[in-house]
């Protein structure tokens, strides 16, 4: 029956999830401390958490409930974006529990089950629970098996069980399938939420508005007008203590497989029939299925490792000198490749993707570079300083959109030069707009999947990347690049053989 209080015309009404609890595995990790716990508090502070909301932490530490409470409180105080309120906290704290145990200890899971049942009867979480696995993928099988064996994964009718997993979703197509088999053996596909925090960002969602709500861009959004597209995610830092996770994974698997291919899909997909999750995902899947890795991998890919040296006034270690990294490591910290999309819209317009650590600055952007006009109305001299028109979607930082076009230089001669038109949706957008994790946690509690990639997308992404990573693994040497630069020489070569160059973001 329709809820008369939820009028579809009522745009103000905020969606509030029904009663439910969140069980967080790996609660002492960096992600939980810096992002998840603060996001939960921020949701509470905005009045968006369900009434009976409860939070159960599960970790190895030998903690009491109150030790855990202090830990949560500290994480919130140092990382939440909304102001501290004692009464919000004390309300939230009433639903906080802790279960101590290893991921392989059935007794701990039995205890967890008891705690969860108590919450149902004491707090009214109504048998609805979400398991958030913020743990290394190698622990997934253990945790999920125990969730099943302890009976925690079983929901009665009218209740839900959901599971949230973080990247990496495997390290190649085969391991992604194996991992998924483990998860989907216990949880049905529509109860599995794969978090890619990039998709929670306002700017990323804005790609859809920019493309499909305007008449200005979509008509020229094809190979007739667009020369090529560059998608960049650059970091200025090194691996900063994540050696254990990063070594053996590398830049391509860490970033290109998920974030950059998702950005590519949103930029290149056909207009979905509607914003219904199924149709949105179908559009993305279709374009990913048509995306092909380069035929000549040597020519159109590039990889490298950052060397040591001075970066921006600071002396930094090279990748091979970082603690925990083997001096013989073959893992790339920079990866770039050309992809081609085999459909009528994009045939002839390559997409160039690059990511790396210790690059010139921290920036994520999509640059759509247009072709030059065919006519020769202006003499060679007049347009010698004119580049290609470009539309740049800045994902972070300084979220917004820039358009680059030519304009006459004031003066007697006809000189045309690049100028930019810039839109920044408020420089404090990052400060006051919901952090990506808030949006995603809320969507998980509501059971709304459009922002979460499903397994098919994950597999298609691996199909694109696998041949590249496999070819790289056979290379004995890996190019070094200067810290603070824009990557190895081969990155520039792969562009120059196509007669193009990377833009300076």
């Amino acid at each position, binding site marked *: 029956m329709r809820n008369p209080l939820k009028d579809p015309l009522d745009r103000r009404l905020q969606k*509030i999830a029904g009663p439910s609890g969140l069980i967080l595995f790996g609660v002492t990790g960096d992600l939980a401390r810096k992002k998840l716990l603060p996001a939960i508090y921020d949701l509470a502070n905005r*009045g968006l958490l369900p009434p009976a909301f409860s939070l159960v932490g599960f970790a190895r530490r030998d903690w009491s409930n109150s030790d855990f409470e202090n830990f949560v409180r500290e994480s919130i105080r140092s990382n939440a974006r909304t102001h501290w309120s004692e009464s919000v906290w004390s*309300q939230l704290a009433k639903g906080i529990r802790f279960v101590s145990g290893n991921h392989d200890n059935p007794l701990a899971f039995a205890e967890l089950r008891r705690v969860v049942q108590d919450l149902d009867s*004491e707090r009214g979480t109504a048998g609805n629970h979400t398991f958030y696995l913020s743990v290394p993928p190698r622990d997934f099988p253990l945790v999920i098996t125990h969730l099943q064996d302890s009976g925690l994964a079983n929901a009665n009718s009218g209740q839900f069980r959901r599971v949230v997993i973080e990247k990496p979703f495997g390290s190649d197509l085969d391991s992604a399938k194996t991992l998924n088999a483990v998860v989907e053996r216990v949880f049905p596909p529509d109860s599995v939420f794969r978090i890619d925090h990039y998709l929670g960002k306002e700017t990323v969602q804005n790609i859809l508005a920019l493309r499909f709500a305007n008449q200005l861009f979509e008509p020229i959004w094809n190979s007739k007008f667009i020369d090529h597209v560059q998608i960049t995610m650059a970091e200025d830092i090194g691996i900063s203590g994540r050696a254990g996770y990063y070594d053996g994974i590398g830049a391509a698997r860490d970033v290109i497989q998920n974030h950059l291919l998702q950005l590519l899909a949103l930029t290149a997909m056909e207009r979905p029939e509607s914003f219904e999750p199924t149709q949105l995902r179908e559009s993305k899947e279709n374009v990913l299925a048509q995306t092909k890795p380069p035929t000549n991998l040597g020519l159109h890919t590039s990889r490298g490792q950052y060397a040591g040296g001075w970066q921006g006034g600071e002396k930094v270690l090279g990748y091979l000198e970082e603690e925990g990294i083997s001096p013989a490591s073959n893992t790339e910290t920079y990866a770039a490749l050309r992809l081609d999309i085999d459909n009528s819209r994009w045939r002839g317009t390559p997409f160039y993707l690059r990511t790396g650590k210790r690059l010139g600055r921290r920036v994520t952007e999509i640059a759509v570079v247009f072709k030059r006009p065919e006519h020769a109305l202006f003499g060679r001299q007049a347009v010698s300083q004119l580049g290609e028109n470009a539309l740049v979607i800045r994902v972070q930082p300084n979220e917004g959109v820039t358009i680059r076009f030519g304009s006459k230089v004031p003066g007697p001669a006809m000189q045309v030069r690049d100028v930019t038109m810039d839109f920044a949706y408020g420089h404090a957008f990052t400060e006051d707009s919901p952090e990506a994790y808030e949006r995603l946690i809320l969507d998980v509690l509501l059971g709304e999947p459009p922002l979460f990639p499903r397994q098919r997308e994950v597999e298609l992404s691996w199909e694109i990347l696998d041949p590249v990573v496999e070819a790289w693994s056979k290379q004995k040497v890996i190019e070094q690049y200067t810290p603070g630069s824009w990557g190895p020489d081969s990155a520039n070569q792969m562009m120059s053989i196509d007669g193009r160059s990377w833009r300076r973001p």
Partner: protein
Amino acid sequence: MIVELRQTTTAQVAKKLQELRESGGVVSLGRVLSLIVETDVQDLEQAVETANSASKLHPSRIIVIAKNTEEKTWLDAEIRVGGDAGASEVVILRANNEVLQNIESLVSGLLLPDAPIVAWWPTSAPVNLGRSSIGMMAGRRITDSARQENPVRFLKELARNYRPGDGDAAWTRITLWRSQLAAVYEAHVDQEVVQAKVFGSADSPSAHLLAAWLGLKLGTRVSLDSTSNADQVSGIRGVEIELSSGRISMTRKNQTVTIDQPGQPISAGLLPPRSDLDCLVEDLRFLGEDEIYAEILLKGLAHDNEGS
């Protein structure tokens, strides 16, 4: 940076704004709307602060018209940009009634070209928003009935003079209440509603609007109970919905709402009070007509008055 212009005109103010932009120093972000604020001199700083903070999410040019009671018949202006204006540019125009006679002429030279205009009266407001000189220019008019001398009578005036684009912070203030109610009621939609009750102060326009909304949407009689446990209540204290087989009751104390509903243990959630800033930010998100508000104001409120 704050620039004061004594005995000035709109044209001079506009010229100075342009100069400030060109002389560097002042970064111009993409502004999405012009916000005209009408206020008294004593409420000025509070209003500017709220508008400035809201501009972080909705970059805007803020034009404040502050009426003073001074004898001098000229216009004083103040421009705030950069660090003193958040993500906005603020122009404050101070003058007495005589100088403010033709407000449109004062403001139009300062509006952003082609951007939506929002009028905001943080405190006292004209009874007929759409006919006021600022209201006629704006596509969206935001007032706060709770800040008027007689809030309930003001609500009736709002209803009588309603035009698409009108809005009321007293309505925005209950968005969280409404969201929570809609979420809680979700589990009981198959039950018949017998009657409902809003516990709240009789002079709280928000309480009247909430009762009107519930009454209209649930199609039931909703009464407003201004006494609760013999205590006078201020604002909204709680809501009760009587169903054919039990009762949903939500009671707020401080920031916490206790929810008692059939078939479930008593639970508690958060219902933090909303600041003027929260309300303004929400209102600026939805330009154009607020159809649900119109429906409640025009149909629901009449219903509510007959009922009680």
